[in-house]
């Protein structure tokens, strides 16, 4: 082959033909004008492209010699394994969002509890120490009863004791 193409100095070298058959990166290079004039080089380029395909097959080792039936059998094995695996897992991203939402909710509840427990303990203590005079508030008796109930609930939620002199026992 080389003997055919060597000697004129205008024929494409193996390296040039390889570069045309397997462009290093990106788009194929423009074909040299020589190829349209030289049948030997055009034929050699076809051989180089065929050699590239053959090299791909050779590089795939024994896989290149597998029959369609053998491939099909392996695909069937994979499908069987998938059927045995059951349902796909839920999305990790969805799970993360769910976890984040639950954590945020928990933090909000904790913050609210702390916020409500702290001042209510003070007001509860103050209320027990100096009861508000009748008529000092513009609340109706029903509102006052509700208010008292809520304060007692907060007091208990904050760790207050029923029989610690708070008067709660009598109200209950």
């Amino acid at each position: 082959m080389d003997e055919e193409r060597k000697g004129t100095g205008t024929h494409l070298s193996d390296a040039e033909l390889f570069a045309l058959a397997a462009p290093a990166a990106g788009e194929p290079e423009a074909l040299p004008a020589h190829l349209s004039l030289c049948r030997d080089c055009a034929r050699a380029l076809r051989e180089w492209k065929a050699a590239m395909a053959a090299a791909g097959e050779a590089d795939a080792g024994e896989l290149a010699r597998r029959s369609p039936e053998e491939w099909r059998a392996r695909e069937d094995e994979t499908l069987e394994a998938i059927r045995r695996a059951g349902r796909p897992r839920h999305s990790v991203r969805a799970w993360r969002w769910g976890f984040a939402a639950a954590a945020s909710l928990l933090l909000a509840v904790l913050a609210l509890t702390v916020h409500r427990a702290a001042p209510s303990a003070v007001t509860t203590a103050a209320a027990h120490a100096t009861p508000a005079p009748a008529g000092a508030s513009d609340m109706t008796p029903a509102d006052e009863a509700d208010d008292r109930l809520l304060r007692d609930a907060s007091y208990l939620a904050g760790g207050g004791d029923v029989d610690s002199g708070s008067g709660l026992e009598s109200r209950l």
Partner: protein
Amino acid sequence: MIPRETDSDMDEADLIRQVRNGNADAFEHFVRTYQRRLTRIAYRFLRDAAEADCAAQESFLRAYQNIGDFREGSTFETWLTRICINWCKDRLKRRRRVVFFHEAPVRESDEEGDEPEERAPASDPSPERRAMGREIRERLALALDSLSPRQRVVFGLKHFEEMSIPEIAASTGLDEGTIKSHLFRAARKIRERLAEFQS
């Protein structure tokens, strides 16, 4: 390269939704379409057909189980290939065979007549033509042997599996510049070897 096996018009996004909703049969399309190609890609890393089969099957299984994590908008094939290549890398690490990337790969087709003759153009089957084709294939095989294993893997993904540079980058986790650099160096090395043979 073994072509993709199925109808490219198949709406993969719709199939993925079906799989997410528990229809395992909808996954068959992906296995029939990509298993051969995936196995070949795994083989380029592992150089062992049985392990390549295992890599492909495990990759499908992982893809199926974690399909909820697949982001629509990217291609399923690239995602699947990335899973497979990561599996191969883990396998190599576990077997302490990272050295694979620094040792010469084993050629399995050096025997006379082992290369697929049908790959030679059939239009001119003259003995002279066959001899020419064989001579080119032998020189190309020798030149390919001069590549480092990493260059060879990248070269194989590009030219034998016909993956684009962005696909290779997405699948291997390397950036495109690195891929281009490997390809450029590989091509230069092959051309140098061919020039040596010719001189």
